[in-house]
């Protein structure tokens, strides 16, 4: 059974319905990639929460095929004017780019229609993901306008000029942990189990707390309403890269279950054949995840989610210890991700929804290095992090004009790693509130939010946010938001206690520096102190103020133009600076809030539907990211005497392209043939700071690149009662074989073959 819901208000006004009893319906379905179909069904009416609110009409019919991206167009119905009670209704569904009623949760922590959010939200749909042929999240995210892949202890994503550390990444609303050095490695997440990816740009700490400075990426897993649905996907390609994944959904009246399994492996690759080690090592990983929902009563639901991910990497590299010494080592890396969520959803009244959840996650990584020649053990590195979060959230829909959200919770984290001898533990208490006010429902809406985070090891944070949207006409909608975001100092910046015995320097985190420095002084290891420990002030979180504004314009119903301008001012960025000199001649460093950054720019995107089979997407972003460089120089005055001059300038940052863009063309024919051509452009960017002045000089830029991907496939639909679908696809990624040693995530030209079965 397939369920389509639409707003009764629309239907009442266009069809002049007055009845509320069930109604026979004829559905004329015209969606992308399928022959037009006529189906019979029944529409039932469910009244609204209050008598003044419109209810919803629900249409059900006997088709087990899921229809995506279909829009209800009752105003096209030829029987509209003649419709009388008990007459069958003729409704037409027509394909559009975004399914009306695409619901997003990330913008407001509540379910809201994509068209009605006040923030710039992009949604990557399931169809887009399966058409793109990606297997990992990093690949599909990279195609989006304004998102750039970076490689720094893992493949991360850069948004609005911010490094990967500044974007919160969540799975079904719970944060993913395990950032060894700030970056969350996106290769850990398979794409098969994803229903949609919601990307919110702009600081969202008012709802989500730390790390939501540049934005939030929320990965929503699949949910099907069919009694039983299954799909299987197999992919094989160059570098012996294989991916096998499957999902099983079982929905009964009171309980539903979803199981997902995935295995992924690759030999890795070498971008430069003269190198001893590989650019991307050989790896194997597996994911298993389960979600079960039980309807305890009419008003109480329990959801349990479990996820396990394990990855093994093997590589052989030449480890350069210093200028003259090197050794060949074999590295065996093992990573384990476990997460569990238990959520109770309670609706005591129709207007009130309360969610009590408990989230537990652990991440552990272990690297064993062995010398190749002698077989001797060389080094063991380990990193183990746990994260726990009980949380209570309540949503109250006072009326169609007012909606409130209130929540609070606790976070407890522990870390165990050889560079943190004290095995630190931290905790945060947080509370948030949000109010939405629609003076004119559907047309004008304001949202204001505030969150307070109190942490055990750094100064408390208050994050406000304000956003608004105004639908000027059917075709034009304006959005604007202003808010604050913050990023908590990470474990390194708080608790590091590390001395490099070869080079002779020490680095302390802000919570370990006083004791650590005192110990070194007592042992006679300090030659000179630049800044006394008593003078060190408590470290603060990095924080930003940002403005985002833009509009969505439907030039025609099939042609949408969207734009967003942004301006971020980040302060208190944490940097390392020396505070003392050791007897070895090298320095003792700790972390300070020193830096200041301004990023600004704009992005524009078009989505066009042509001739019912073609979809064209194109996007462009302009980015100007600058960092405050403060220098004290010793120069001379007119008489040649020494004077000190302090310069303060904002200079361009590294690894940020001023111009990036993409173009994607999708074809989905009625006969089942499909194809895709995608091009991603990355403009020139500064990379190496050759003269160590802290910013990108004109001669420090790497050249621009354009990567093309091509794929083609066919879907065969069988006419048996279950209506299974078989899709065979083949493709070539990176058609022109572009490689760059500094962008190791581009593997050169890759071919693949993929088979998908859907029941």
């Amino acid at each position, binding site marked *: 059974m397939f369920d389509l819901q639409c707003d009764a208000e629309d239907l009442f006004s266009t069809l002049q319905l007055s009845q509320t009893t069930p109604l026979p319906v004829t559905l004329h379905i015209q969606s992308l990639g399928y022959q037009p179909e006529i189906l019979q069904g029944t529409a039932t009416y469910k009244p609204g929460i209050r008598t003044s609110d419109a209810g919803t009409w629900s249409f059900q019919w006997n088709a087990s095929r899921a229809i995506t991206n279909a829009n209800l167009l009752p105003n096209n119905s030829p029987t509209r004017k003649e419709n009388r009670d008990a007459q069958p209704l003729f409704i037409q569904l027509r394909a559009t780019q975004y399914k009306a009623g695409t619901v997003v949760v990330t913008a407001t922590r509540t379910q809201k229609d994509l068209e009605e959010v006040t923030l710039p939200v992009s949604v990557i749909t399931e169809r887009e993901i399966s058409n793109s042929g990606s297997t990992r999240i990093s690949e599909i995210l990279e195609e989006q306008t304004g998102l750039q892949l970076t490689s720094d202890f893992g493949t991360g994503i850069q948004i609005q000029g911010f490094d990967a550390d500044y974007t919160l990444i969540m799975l079904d609303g719970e944060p993913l942990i395990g950032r060894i050095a700030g970056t969350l490695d996106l290769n850990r997440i398979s794409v098969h189990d994803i229903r949609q990816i919601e990307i919110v740009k702009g600081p969202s700490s008012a709802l989500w707390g730390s790390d939501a400075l540049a934005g939030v990426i929320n990965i929503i897993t699949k949910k099907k309403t069919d009694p039983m649905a299954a799909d299987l996907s197999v992919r094989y390609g160059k570098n012996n890269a294989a991916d096998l994944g499957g999902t099983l959904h079982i929905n009964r009246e009171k309980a539903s279950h979803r199981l997902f399994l995935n295995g992924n492996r690759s030999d890795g690759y070498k971008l430069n054949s003269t190198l001893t080690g590989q650019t991307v090592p050989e790896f194997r990983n597996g994911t298993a995840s389960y979600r079960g929902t039980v309807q305890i009563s009419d008003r109480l639901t329990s959801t349990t989610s479990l996820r396990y991910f394990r990855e093994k990497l093997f590589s052989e590299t030449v480890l*350069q210890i*210093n*200028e003259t010494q*090197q050794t060949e080592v074999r590295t065996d890396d093992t990573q384990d991700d476990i997460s569990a969520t238990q959520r109770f959803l309670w609706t005591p009244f129709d207007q009130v929804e309360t969610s009590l959840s408990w989230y537990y996650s652990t991440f552990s990584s272990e690297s064993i290095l062995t010398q190749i020649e002698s077989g001797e053990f060389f080094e063991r590195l380990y990193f183990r992090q746990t994260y726990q979060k009980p949380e209570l959230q309540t949503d109250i829909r006072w009326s169609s004009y007012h909606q409130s959200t209130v929540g609070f919770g606790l976070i407890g984290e522990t870390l165990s790693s050889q560079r943190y001898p004290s095995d630190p533990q931290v905790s945060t208490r947080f509370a948030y509130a949000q109010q939405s006010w629609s003076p004119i429902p559907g047309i004008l809406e304001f949202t204001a939010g505030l969150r307070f985070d109190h942490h055990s090891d750094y100064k408390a944070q208050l994050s406000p946010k304000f956003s608004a949207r105004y639908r000027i006409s059917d075709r034009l909608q304006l959005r604007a938001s202003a808010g604050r975001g913050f990023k908590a100092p990470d474990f390194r910046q708080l608790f590091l206690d590390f001395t490099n015995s070869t080079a002779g320097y020490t680095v302390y985190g802000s919570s370990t520096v006083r004791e650590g420095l005192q110990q070194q002084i007592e042992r006679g290891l300090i*030659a*000179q102190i630049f800044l006394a420990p008593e003078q060190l002030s408590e470290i603060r979180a990095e924080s930003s103020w940002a403005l985002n504004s833009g509009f969505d314009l439907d030039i025609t119903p099939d042609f949408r133009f969207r734009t967003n301008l942004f301006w971020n001012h980040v302060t208190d960025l944490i940097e390392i600076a020396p505070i003392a*000199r050791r007897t070895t*001649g*090298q*320095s003792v460093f700790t972390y300070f809030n020193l830096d200041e950054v301004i990023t600004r720019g704009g992005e524009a995107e078009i989505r066009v539907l042509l001739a019912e089979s073609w979809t064209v997407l194109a996007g462009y972003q302009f980015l100007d990211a600058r960092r405050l460089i403060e*220098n004290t*120089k*010793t*120069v*001379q005055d007119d*008489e*040649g*005497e*020494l004077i000190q001059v302090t310069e303060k300038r904002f200079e361009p940052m590294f690894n940020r392209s001023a111009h990036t863009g993409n173009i994607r063309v999708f074809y989905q024919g009625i006969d089942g043939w499909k194809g895709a051509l995608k091009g991603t452009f990355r403009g020139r960017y500064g*990379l*190496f*700071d*050759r*003269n*160590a*002045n802290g910013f990108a000089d004109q001669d420090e830029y790497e050249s621009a690149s354009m990567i093309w991907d091509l794929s083609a496939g066919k879907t065969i639909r069988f006419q048996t009662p279950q209506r299974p679908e078989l899709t065979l696809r083949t493709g070539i990624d990176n058609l022109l074989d572009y490689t760059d040693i500094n962008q190791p995530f581009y593997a050169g030209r890759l071919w693949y073959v993929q088979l998908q079965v859907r029941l």
Partner: protein
Amino acid sequence: MNMNTVTRTFIRTFTRTPLWFALPALALLLLQACGTTNSSDPVSNTESQLVEDLAALGENGVFTLFNLRTGEATTDSTSTNWDIGFRGTTLIFNSGSSGPGQGGVVLLDLPFDDVTLAPSEGYQADSADNYAISTGSGTGWYNYTGEGFPPFAILPRENVTLIIKTANGSNYAKLEILSYYEGNPDPTSDEFVNIQTRSASRYYTFRYVVQQTEDLREF
């Protein structure tokens, strides 16, 4: 009388009077006021040198000592016959705890060719706790690239000039270090970037201009 007669009489009178003798002296005085050298003003005598591949291997902890005034290397650290010493990345100057001289150094954040005048004061001497020029990366004369590009390289900081007061305390020199590697290789060349093919380190190439006229601070 007509004009010609007046002129003739004027010239005859002028050339006859003692005032005539004053004219060359007057001319000299006038010319001097326009700024030509007075024989009592010091004469600038600058010498520009390029020193290549000065080995500073530091065997047995010994510094390679160099005299800027004579342009020669010496070995006796107890004399005033040297101005600057090199050992690995450490620089010493004939001053304070490093030697008996009255030398000193100041680090200027200015390009070598832009410096035309040495400051009169502010020179640092080496002390037991502190070298006048810091030995650390970024704070002294060099940057260490570590894992950057080119990797593990000692590269002289750009637009840094050392102003040196020589051991006798009366001569000034400006100095710029060009390379820490044998043969002054181009740091962007493939040969240099690859550590296996990089030339040996601890070989200094530097250029300097020394003012041989004592107490004159011009270059």
